[in-house]
């Protein structure tokens, strides 16, 4: 098989992979979203419980199908956003996630992107039936765009290979 990429995960990644924080769904979550797909080999679901008056994230959980970096990225992201306002949470970039993990190998940047993509989708989902705040951009952010592109690409590839 083609397993020849140096996976130079830092200690933090492996630690969180072994013992991820905040795994699972949230009973009564008021926002959730998915990014990635089985075909991608990468999929992250983010569940948020947001305080309706303060827009503060009271609880955050995730589910992940993917590599060690994927699980670690989702785990650390949920830790980073707990207790923050949605507007602050929105500002977290894939790079912030990677830094918090002690640096991701280049081939694994997309794991950070996917985690942030899922989070931002969840935030958008939260505002779906609510008044949209000014800080929420209309256009897709970089991370959301990348997640979407990956999903579409895989759909095409997967279809092609099934022919």
């Amino acid at each position, binding site marked *: 098989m083609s397993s020849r*990429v140096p996976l130079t995960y*830092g200690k933090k990644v*492996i630690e969180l992979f072994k013992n991820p924080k905040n795994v699972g769904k949230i009973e009564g979550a008021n926002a959730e979203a998915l990014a990635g797909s089985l075909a991608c080999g*990468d999929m992250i679901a983010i569940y948020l419980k947001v305080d309706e008056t303060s827009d503060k994230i009271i609880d955050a959980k995730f589910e992940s199908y993917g590599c060690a970096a994927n699980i670690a990225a989702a785990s650390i992201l949920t830790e980073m956003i707990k207790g923050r306002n949605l507007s602050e949470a929105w500002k977290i970039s894939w790079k912030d996630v990677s830094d918090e993990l002690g640096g991701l190998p280049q081939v694994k940047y997309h794991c950070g992107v996917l985690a942030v993509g899922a989070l931002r989708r969840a935030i958008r989902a939260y505002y779906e039936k609510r008044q949209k705040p000014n800080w929420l951009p209309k256009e897709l952010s970089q991370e959301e765009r990348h997640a979407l592109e990956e999903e579409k690409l895989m759909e095409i590839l997967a279809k092609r*290979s099934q022919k």
Partner: protein
Amino acid sequence: MIYSDLSKSIKELIEFHGIPKREVYLDYENSGLIIPEALRAMEEAYKFNGRGHPSITHLPGWLSYESLFKATSIFASIINCNPEEIVYTHSGSEANNLAILGSAVISPKGRRKIFVSSIEHLSVIFPAERLEERGFKLIKIPVDKEGYIDLDFISEHVDDETLMISVGIVNHEIGTIQDIKALRDITKDKNKEVLIHTDACAALGRIKLDMKELDVDLASFSSHKVYGPKGVGALYIKEGVKLEPIIYGQLSTQKLWPGVENVPGILGFSKAVETIYSNFTEYKSKMIELRDMLINSILNNIDHTLLNGPYGDKRSPDNINISFIYCEGEALTVELSMNGIYVSSGSACTSRVLEPSHVLLAIGRRYEEAHGSLLMKVTPFHTKSDMEYVLEVLPRIVNRLRSISPVKPSNR
């Protein structure tokens, strides 16, 4: 990433990982142990023969030549060919490149079609694709769900323009043992000039190989795949078949690959082959026993698993390749490693290219099935207790990963 960062992070990782109490190494798809007898043969050569190299006008050269001759004769007699029909390279990849590119260089006008199966090793597929860029026509032979090539396709498509066909006798990922003799007969029936190449890197040491019986024109071998030293490959070239070098320099006893021969490596290689085949019956049944222990237990005890490749006698004795649906292969390999079990995966996450294993896709596996595949290869030197340990650890890991996943077997 630059080297010093890489090194720091790997060191950290190794430290954090720790040395597991129990270890079972099964990543023979990549590389593995060396047989002690082979290591010893190489060491002795370095001490006594290594100074010289064959074909020189002095005693150490003659001694080297003689030892090279002996080693080649032993290897040749095991695969039933003449020693003159063997040339050495430094790896199986080089042997495959030499076979494919070296035939194409001197291909007659009008013979520009090359067939390779869609599940070949990349060191067959990539040179063939290079030839395509240079104006050859590359045709990928389709395979069925177990990886068997479509023989009807060959009898329909092989024609006067066909230069060569390359199909590995044992597939390196899914263990399919092809009927190369049938392939040969069908091909030569359409055009007897077609060169038949078989990549036998994953076959040597796993099945009996008889060049006279197979009657192919070219066959590739790799030393480290048969528990010999690294740095040695070999190409069988049937008497009368013409190739051109693809790397240029001083030729010596090796008429197609330049540079000083790796004599100590070759002696180690030959010794490894000799050791395996002198215990072949025993080793083969040992491997089959261990293989089936793993396959049967995993398929029976872990849900949503799929065997990749054929079951039973038509499968290479060493090969276990199973997809764990709703699990991602890299995560599996990393967690197995932390438990001392070392395997590889067909997941895209563990490859340089975006896509998962081309072999699994070619047999019709979906992406998610390929992503969740594990490849393990047993050797005659593994024990039942090794397998028991794997069977104890693996279900736990699969369960944990599935429990984290947003897509569960149940909610699909």
